[in-house]
């Protein structure tokens, strides 16, 4: 739908400009030729430079002259990724590396791909990436790999396991199972429950929902109403949960698989006057969610350990750069935090700044 709207919009200016453009066509061609020639000259100069004269300052005497790492989180400004960045930066500094972070405005393959290809041009020694789609990012990440850049996946992963050297992630399926157990506990093993998921095709959240579905089946007293996708928009999450409350007013619990869905669900429940009555289990522990847990809008949070993911990701990528063996698969622990034990678990709360 969105593409259709933007297309019909873009037709209009083009039509009014068309006539004027035709008049200038001849002059433009000449300018265009000059530009192409200039670009070719630059390109030739660039290629020549790197091929013959340009030597790295170290001259190859110390093994890894390139000490640059890049972290490519899935989206800007999520406390989860900021905490990961903090952990990664700390570890990189300790190992004597430089870590730069570049994130897209949205969790969207179309926005992350140009960032990946942009990073490719800067030739860092290693890249830590949270791919925003398990298939769409395979190509650009393969380009990184083919350029000799060491690639380690953090948080999310590709379906194709041959691209990255190592994957450091939360055991999301176990997180989903933990959520199901927490839900069952909260509702006393009886009642209707549902899942609010983000976008279909996101490996982490799909794994959480899968783990939840598998575990909830072990609780015969609980009726599972299935999942709804929210496009990762809080407003859609609010819409869907109030709609579900219309059809099933006796809804007992909701498992929201990430931050935006959780916030939308909390708003929808509050709107419906069902806060606390419908148990909301969120995923992640960003400051807002921790506040909501404290205030009772959320009954429990399933927290990951992003700082550890970042630290271990850096460890792995540095090991690869320095020619030491890497571990293909690392899974970090998740933990369920309820209102009662939240103060004891404050080390798991996510940060908004390092």
């Amino acid at each position, binding site marked *: 739908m969105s593409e*259709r709207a933007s297309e019909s919009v873009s037709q209009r200016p083009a039509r009014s400009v068309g006539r004027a453009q035709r008049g200038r066509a001849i002059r433009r061609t000449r300018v265009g030729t000059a530009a192409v020639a200039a670009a070719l000259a630059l390109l030739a100069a660039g290629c020549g430079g790197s091929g013959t004269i340009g030597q790295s300052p170290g001259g190859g005497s110390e093994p890894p002259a390139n000490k640059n790492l890049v972290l490519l989180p899935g989206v800007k*400004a999520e*406390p989860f990724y900021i905490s990961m960045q903090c952990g990664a930066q700390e570890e990189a500094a300790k190992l004597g590396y430089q870590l730069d972070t570049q994130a897209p*405005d949205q969790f969207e393959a179309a926005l992350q791909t140009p960032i990946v290809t942009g990073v490719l041009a800067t030739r860092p020694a290693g890249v830590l990436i949270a791919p925003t789609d398990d298939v769409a990012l395979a190509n650009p990440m393969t380009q990184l790999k083919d350029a000799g850049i060491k690639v380690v996946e953090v948080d999310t992963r590709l379906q194709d396991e041959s691209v990255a050297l190592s994957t450091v992630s939360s055991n999301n399926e176990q997180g989903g199972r933990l959520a199901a157990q927490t839900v069952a506990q909260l509702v006393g093993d009886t009642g209707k429950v549902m899942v609010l998921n983000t976008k279909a095709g996101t490996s982490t959240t799909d794994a959480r929902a899968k783990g939840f579905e598998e575990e909830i089946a072990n609780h015969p007293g609980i009726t599972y109403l299935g999942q709804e996708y929210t496009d*990762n928009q809080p407003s859609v999450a609010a*819409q869907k949960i109030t*709609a579900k409350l219309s*059809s099933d007013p006796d809804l007992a619990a909701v498992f929201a698989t990430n931050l935006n869905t959780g916030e939308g669900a909390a*708003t929808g429940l509050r709107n419906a006057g069902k806060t606390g009555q419908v148990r909301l289990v969120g995923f992640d522990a960003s400051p807002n969610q921790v506040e909501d847990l404290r205030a009772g809008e959320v009954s429990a949070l399933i927290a990951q350990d992003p700082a550890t993911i970042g630290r271990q990701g850096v460890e792995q990528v540095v090991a690869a750069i320095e020619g030491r063996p890497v571990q293909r698969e690392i899974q970090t622990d998740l933990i369920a935090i309820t209102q009662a034990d939240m103060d004891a678990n404050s080390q798991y709360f996510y940060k908004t700044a390092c």
Partner: protein
Amino acid sequence: MIDTEVGAPAQRTAAQRLAGASTFWIALVLVALCVLFSVLRPDAFPTLFTLQTLLIEASVLLVLAVGMTFVIITAGIDLSVGSVLVFSGVVAATFMESLSGGDASGAGVGVVLLGLVAALAGGGVWGLVNGLLVARARIPPLIVTLGSFGAALGAAQLITDGVDVRTVPRVLRDGLGFGQTGQVPHMVALAAVVTLAGAWLLHTTRFGRRTFAVGSNAEAARRAGIPVRGHLVRVYTGVGLLSGLAGFMSLAYFGTTTISGHSTDNLNAIAAVVLGGTSLFGGVGTVFGTVIGVFIPAVLTKGFVIVGVQQFWQPVAISAVLVAAVWFDQVRRRSRDRR
């Protein structure tokens, strides 16, 4: 639309005029959808609860779409509304935080009102910049607002370091976000006031007539003595102000600035306006149509979840209804114009 009807033959009956109104058939689609869902789930769909939540959830988009109606009638477009919404919310939230020394949760009504002023100012400034660039610098509105779409979001992230502002005054959340008087949620009342004011401004005042005139033929409007540039600046500033208000409402509703959650607001607003019978080529449109256009997707989303439609069908069906409704409207118009 209304303008063209003025010249219609007087012998047409009221029923004929009604059937000829551009919004009539679209409104019928909305009614039909409501009836359909009510028949499928009589216990769940036609309830006060569904109505209330439906209205609240559409309030923010409605305010954006009313402003968008004016812009599209001038044959313009504003892609920046969602980002300006986020920017205004961020400005208001950080301003309220700074007024109350870091944590605005316990702030009073005075601080909230100042926050509202900040939100309106934040939105109005972006609108003014858009308007000046469109009307004075003569850059196509698509490009201008595509620029401010990115810039406003970036500015919001600069102000907050990209992290959502979370301490929103409780007075604001309980008063506007979740408050209601006699079953009428305050969010809905505010959106209704904005909509009625928009309809009044567009359909009964000189400002509205000029908006239609500029969109129909800017050159003719200029020769008729209408200050076209000044009018465009005012229209874009207006939509900026409304985006600012929408940002404040969103803040009250979500209790956080939801920086990453408004990337498709612009397209939703444009789709609603076009669905409501406003022409993308300008000169034609109604606020009432826009209201219908906002509610058709909202009713579909809600109805599908209540009825339990398999969820990957939902976006397919919503998009199909959007395209079909506009196509239907086009066919009807063409057959009328041939007469």
